[in-house]
């Protein structure tokens, strides 16, 4: 297990909106896969790679994220040395919450990076779900002699915008990067995960700040392929990108595929998340679950099909759910029929409701909504 790296997760992305799902929370705090939040995967990947120092960079709506990660105990990141650090923007007396500028955000990151002693930094975007360790990635980075390595896979533009398509030369170095290209030059799509030396990252950020840049993005670093050697590293396992509601829904549904599930949950290291101490899930007399992911604390009286059910959800009698994503504490009353619906936390569906979305355009019911 590699140990000479620290981690930096950009917990939100100004280019990605999941509509009602990301309104109340940062992108990486969006619930995913029954009992997780998106960030759980990257945090676990880092911890499973032996990383003991992780910064989570946020600029907005970070309450739900902070509630979730807490002290980092669930990931064994509640440490005296290093551990988990939430890096919200530095807000000084002149800046109000509404006009926080990016340079405050960057000052915090620089301080955090300077305090560490590791050689490398792994930086990751907020929107990617995969189960891996970074040993190979770092090894390949060292062997390539590159300044920066970027992880990609061959998904092309299938997860929709934002997609960063890489063009590599014969030695695997990036020679071009295209943002949402209408005609992709390759199917190599960046996963938004980088490794580079910590001192180089400090240098890059400091230079960006002195040029008046206020925002720190993964792909602004990859874009430096003209002056720095940026190497591509292909990831062959399952990687899901959450780029919009559509890809969120499709990624959620892909968990019902045995191969995807095995790759994300059963073949590698465990994915950690905040524990909830819910009761076991009870299936009653007429419960009928087919091809479903179901989490703890649920009460299933009705029929659920091809769905992802989070913790403490009630599905009442004579109710059918098909192709739904149902988040924590949702109550669905009797005689309902829901198809292609995403229900955010605490939503309440009254008896007899019929809602049918389209698989390409699911209906999203916001957090706490009553139907």
């Amino acid at each position, binding site marked *: 297990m590699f140990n000479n790296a620290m981690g930096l997760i950009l917990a939100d992305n100004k280019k990605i909106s999941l509509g009602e799902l990301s309104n109340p929370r940062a992108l990486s705090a969006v619930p995913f*896969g*029954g*009992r997780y939040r998106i960030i759980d995967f990257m945090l676990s990947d880092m911890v499973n790679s032996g990383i003991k120092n992780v910064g989570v960079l946020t600029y907005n709506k970070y309450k739900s994220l902070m509630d979730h990660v807490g002290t980092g*105990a669930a990931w064994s990141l509640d440490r005296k040395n290093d551990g988990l650090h939430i890096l919200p923007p530095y807000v000084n007396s002149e800046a109000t919450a509404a006009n926080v500028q990016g340079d405050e955000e960057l000052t915090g990151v620089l301080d955090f990076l300077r305090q560490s002693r590791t050689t490398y930094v792994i930086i990751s975007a907020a929107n990617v779900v995969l189960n891996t360790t970074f040993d190979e990635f770092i090894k390949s980075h060292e062997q390539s002699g590159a300044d920066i390595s970027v992880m990609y896979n061959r998904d092309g533009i299938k997860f929709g915008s934002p997609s960063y398509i890489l063009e590599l030369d014969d030695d695997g170095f990036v020679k071009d990067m295209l943002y949402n290209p209408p005609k992709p030059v390759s199917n190599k799509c960046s996963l938004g995960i980088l490794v580079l030396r910590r001192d180089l990252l400090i240098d890059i950020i400091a230079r960006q700040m002195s040029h008046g840049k206020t925002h720190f993005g993964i792909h602004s670093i990859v874009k430096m392929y003209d002056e720095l050697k940026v190497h591509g590293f292909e990831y062959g396992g399952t990687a899901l990108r959450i780029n919009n509601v559509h890809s969120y829904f499709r990624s959620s549904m892909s968990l019902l595929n045995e191969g995807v*599930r095995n790759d*994300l*949950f*059963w073949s590698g290291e*465990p*994915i*950690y998340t905040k*524990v*909830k*101490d*819910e*009761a*076991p*899930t*009870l*299936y*009653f*007399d*007429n*419960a*009928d*679950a*087919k*091809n*479903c*992911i*179901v*989490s*703890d*604390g649920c*009460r299933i009286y009705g029929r659920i099909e091809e769905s992802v*059910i989070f913790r*403490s959800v009630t599905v009442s009698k004579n109710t059918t759910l098909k192709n739904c994503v149902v988040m924590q504490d949702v109550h669905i009353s009797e005689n309902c029929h829901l198809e292609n619906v995403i229900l955010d936390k605490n939503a309440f569906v009254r008896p007899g409701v019929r809602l049918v979305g389209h698989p390409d355009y699911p209906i999203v019911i916001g957090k706490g909504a009553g139907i």
Partner: protein
Amino acid sequence: MAKAEVVAMILAGGQGARLGVLTKKIAKPAVPFGSRYRIIDFPLSNCVNSGIEIVGVLSQYQPLALNTYVGNGHPWDLDRQNAGAYILPPFQKSGKSDWYKGTANAIYQNKDFLDDCNPKYVVILSGDHIYKMDYSAMLKSHIERGADATVAVYEVPWEEAPRFGILNTEGDDSIVEFEEKPAKPKSNLASMGVYVFTWDVLREALIKDEADENSNNDFGKNIIPMLLADGRKLFAYRFAGYWKDVGTISSLWETNMDILDKPEDINLVDRSWRIFSRNPVKPSQYIGSEGKVTNSALTDGCRIYGDVIHSVLSNSVVVEKGAVVKDCVLLPGVVVKAGAHLERCIVDFGTIIGENVKAGPSVTGEGPYTNHKICSEGIVVFERGLRIKADSVIPGNSMIDSDIEVSDEESVIESTFRV
């Protein structure tokens, strides 16, 4: 050292021999229960929910699993700066050292621990009951009545009273007599093994009891009668909620089934009195297209491709296609291979039931594993870490134990492995 007005001590050192192979490697309080829990989660969570922050866990028999499970007490919020869960094994002393001889002796040996905590009251609990109880209400009654000791009692049906330690009381619930398993009970108030003592009084009694060489050093048999004889004020505290002893295979099985048949009795979803546990790090459960789950309790990591009917499954259980699991209690990591048919089985950690195995009361007759002493009501118990031969046929009331010597043809065990 931590100081507190109340300290709880959980007696978790007993073997629980009546659970047969289930307690071969682990102490009874560490036995999984109710899909998500271990038995000790109930007293530990009750303590925390009652506001008791110092909890001693007295472990002795096969303590490894229990000690690791309780650990630093974090899952129960018992990892406090100046309080928390303390594992208290027997230890070597400069003078005479001994194992815990009885329940009272276990507390006696940890007199120094209690003296350092300097509590006014000590709550003594056992690690083998499933119940939700507010010990602070009992403590309040203890204080209000100016009692020296308060014993929680449960009204059992009269015909069952001879199986329990029975307390005979007067109109104000003051205790006048304790009878262990009386043939002709004078009361139906059974001791729940939950005691509140004023520490000074208990301390004195423990020292006196220790000096008596003929004593069994047991709370029920010795301490309570001694306090009564000394004219101390003892009261019964009536508890009316759900309370089940899980000391035998049949009661463990029945209590698991209660979660399915009477979920509102123990009410595990009550967020005001949550039962905390050390959570497995596993993904959500998955029910396949050909799986069918009814009247059952499941938790994280289960993968179901067959039929699960009226059963309680712990984490990471796999039921393959065409397998039928009915009225069973499957502990963590059990695998039921395709076509197997299990009924009334309790299967311990990780055991793999081979293809087309048939086990349960519908298989009649007796076999080399028949064990009427441990098993009853047609229940079949499997030891942990066994690979059961495909096509084995196992009658009800069997205990599959790798230590039983059975000829190769008759043996249902293909191999054993460490879990």
